[in-house]
């Protein structure tokens, strides 16, 4: 997945979490890059018609950006599910993040032929847990969150 795809995916998830534009600071944090790098890439995304940036508010994906982000999220979901369900990797979230830049959509599509992804993907992806909601770790995290809320 290329750098632009990683950015649109992160913006898409931040917009879901913040229920509004994604702030540059939050985007930089999520991607572990400097705010200057994030700003530079936001400019590139704007020039490609994938995002719109409003000063003091943040960045919002355009319709084309959303399509691209959902494709990228599907690819990411395939990587997570492949690691968790096929290779039985416990730390699948951390490893998916490491592998994401090196795994191309074409490769993910082929890996997808041996995993049972749900039809609603990528809506299955939970931005809070950073995982597909059908994977075990995500549900454990949800249980913990529910327990905390109950306390």
């Amino acid at each position, binding site marked *: 997945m290329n*750098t632009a795809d*990683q*950015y649109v995916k*992160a913006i898409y998830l931040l917009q879901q979490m913040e229920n509004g534009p994604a702030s540059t600071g939050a985007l930089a944090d*999520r*991607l*572990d*890059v400097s705010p200057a*790098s994030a700003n530079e890439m936001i400019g590139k995304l704007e020039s490609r018609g994938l995002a719109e940036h409003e000063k003091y508010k943040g960045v919002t994906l355009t319709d084309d950006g959303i399509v691209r982000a959902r494709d990228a999220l599907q690819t990411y979901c395939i990587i997570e599910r*492949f*690691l968790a369900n*096929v*290779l*039985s*990797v416990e730390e699948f979230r951390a*490893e998916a*993040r*490491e*592998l*994401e*830049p*090196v*795994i*191309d959509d*074409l*490769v993910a*599509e*082929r*890996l997808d*032929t*041996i995993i049972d992804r749900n039809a609603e993907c990528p809506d299955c992806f939970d931005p809070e847990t950073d995982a597909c909601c059908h994977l075990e770790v995500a549900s454990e995290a949800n249980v913990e969150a529910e327990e905390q809320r109950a306390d």
Partner: protein
Amino acid sequence: MSVGHRVSSDHQLARLLQIGIVLEEVVEARSYHHYQSLDDGEELDAEIESLLEHAAAESAEHRERLEALVEELDAESIPFDEIEALVEAQYGKTEPEDFDDILYDQLCNEETAYKFYDDLVGALRASEATFGIDRDRLIDVLIEIREEEADGVEEVTKIMNKRQ
């Protein structure tokens, strides 16, 4: 997440090689099943039969070469028997519709494998990390495999063009 992250550890390298092994497993299983389906067909096509036979054998050989590299990295093992069974189960239930279907699928297999090795070689070249395997030898092996995948793409394309 780390944008522009490159291969930086033995663990990550081993994982990528393991993904390569699974991809080869998929190619091998698909070629094998398509090859079997030709046996059931009324009319055998010698050229496609030879292509699939060669593809399955080549994937098995690639898988062994990748496995040897992973072993040198002293990585945790992954359940290959289960993966083999899973891949087998997936392809046991799908049948290609015709020869063109088989060829198109084979082309996707070869192209995907080529892209995977090409990206991996690029990521390794961009990395300054030291691995448990000699980097030059590792890259040489991956380039050899990548070139065989490129030959595979060319071979399938030739047959597809002839059939048009």
